[in-house]
């Protein structure tokens, strides 16, 4: 994958994610972690090669097909990407509204999710009035509210304290137990250490550290294409 006419930022990547797997994506800054995540959450198309998600080759999928697949993916962006003029409640509710849920169906789950991430009393606050950590928790709540089949998170604990990081990891683990495939890009070694059974995808200079495509700590069931 390359941006415009620049050099390739990702190349010779060949790996599979098992359905229900938990993956940490690591590597030095500039290794291409965010670019790989963008391919995973269908924000970009590869300039060459192929990408399959949910059993479909989506490399050249028509753009009107992409929203249906994107709704099956939860994304925690590195820069949160909250809508500044919407309340925390509305930001978290957005995926449900986009998928057509009514206000009555939204109210309960969103309140519950905000409580889970410790923001029950900040539901009506707008992002500019929230701290970095609070914004990150809103972003995570928005990503997981619709119980996606694949959760992609870019440095999800970068702005929260150790206690909240542990709490969020617990949320990801709980989701993973429900069948959600999790891919977390992080530099936080402690997070990886606290997640037994998770696999490691290590990128270096745009390629897998292990060019065979074998991921470290492969869990039971790995190899089944997603």
């Amino acid at each position, binding site marked *: 994958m390359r941006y415009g006419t620049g050099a390739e930022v990702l190349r010779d990547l060949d790996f599979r994610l098992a359905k229900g797997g938990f993956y940490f994506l690591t590597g030095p800054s500039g290794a291409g972690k965010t670019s790989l995540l963008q391919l995973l*959450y269908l924000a970009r198309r590869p300039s060459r090669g192929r990408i399959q998600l949910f059993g479909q080759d989506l490399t050249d999928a028509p753009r009107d097909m992409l929203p249906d697949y994107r709704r099956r993916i939860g994304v925690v962006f590195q820069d949160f*990407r909250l*809508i500044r003029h919407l309340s925390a409640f509305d930001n978290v509710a957005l995926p449900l509204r986009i998928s057509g849920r009514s206000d009555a169906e939204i109210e309960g789950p969103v309140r519950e999710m905000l409580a889970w991430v410790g923001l029950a009393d900040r539901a009506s606050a707008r992002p500019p009035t929230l701290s970095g950590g609070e914004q990150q928790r809103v972003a995570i709540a928005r990503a997981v509210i619709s119980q996606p089949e694949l959760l992609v998170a870019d440095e999800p604990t970068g702005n929260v304290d150790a206690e909240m990081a542990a709490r969020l990891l617990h949320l990801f683990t709980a989701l993973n137990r429900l069948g959600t495939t999790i891919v977390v890009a992080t530099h936080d070694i402690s997070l990886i250490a606290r997640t037994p059974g998770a696999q490691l995808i290590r990128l270096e200079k745009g390629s897998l550290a292990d060019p065979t495509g074998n991921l470290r700590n492969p869990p039971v069931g790995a190899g089944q294409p997603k």
Partner: protein
Amino acid sequence: MSVSLLAGTEAERRLLPGGTLRGPTPYVIAIMTFAMMIVAAAGLALANAAGIVAGAVEHRYVLQLPDGSGGKLEAAVRAAQSVRGVTGVESVPEAELRRTLEKWLGPGGVAEELPVPALIHLELAPGTNAGQVGTSLGRAVPGARFIAEQATVGPLLGSLRALRWLAVALVLLMAAATSAAVVLAARGALDTHRSTIEIMHGIGATDEQVALLFQRKIALDAMVGALAGGVAAALALLVIGGGGLALASDLTGGPPLGAGDFVILALLPIAAVVLATLVARFAVLSALHKII
């Protein structure tokens, strides 16, 4: 997320903040609607006037005698009455002709010694061959000229019809200018809300859902603008038209605007709203297609 065109939920309205009248769109559409209605009213009035004048002179002719004295006028009237197809004959009194000339030439210009031609108005039955009538009258009244009134007023009718088409062209140009303004407004709104759109796309919103948000916002702006422009134009037409109505009726023998014309004028603001909404939708969808 619902796909309602105008109503929208409160949550949808919150997605694109900034109420009506905050951008230039309602003002541009108000001005354009006002101008379109005034120009359209003028065009329709001209078209009606041309139609009335053309209809009035369609079967009317003039027999012009170089000299009507010495019983020549009366003889010509009798000859005209005897020609097949002529249903009405009316001579114009010399005094009336001189009064008309006096308006142009002044009191000194209509002295008794100034020769004045004699005129006879003729009305032909529909379907009558005017050429044959002219030939018959030429034989019966030597030296007389048989003139179709349509030919006399032809340049006037031509001008009226040209003005009518000019009005149509102006209305279309203003519609095009309105569309261009809406495209610019839609692009501006897209730029303003680009981050919101990217986030919505990222979590699975379709182009249709995003476009509807903008379409609804611009439709509301257009409705407010068209309503204001329409009301202003209606008031202007009442004030201006009220004074000119009687004069126009006198000149053409009929009202300048009919019921159908008022329906057309009333539809213009609605057309402006529909046009703005469709153009906004097209502009937004086109722009969204450039984003993955």
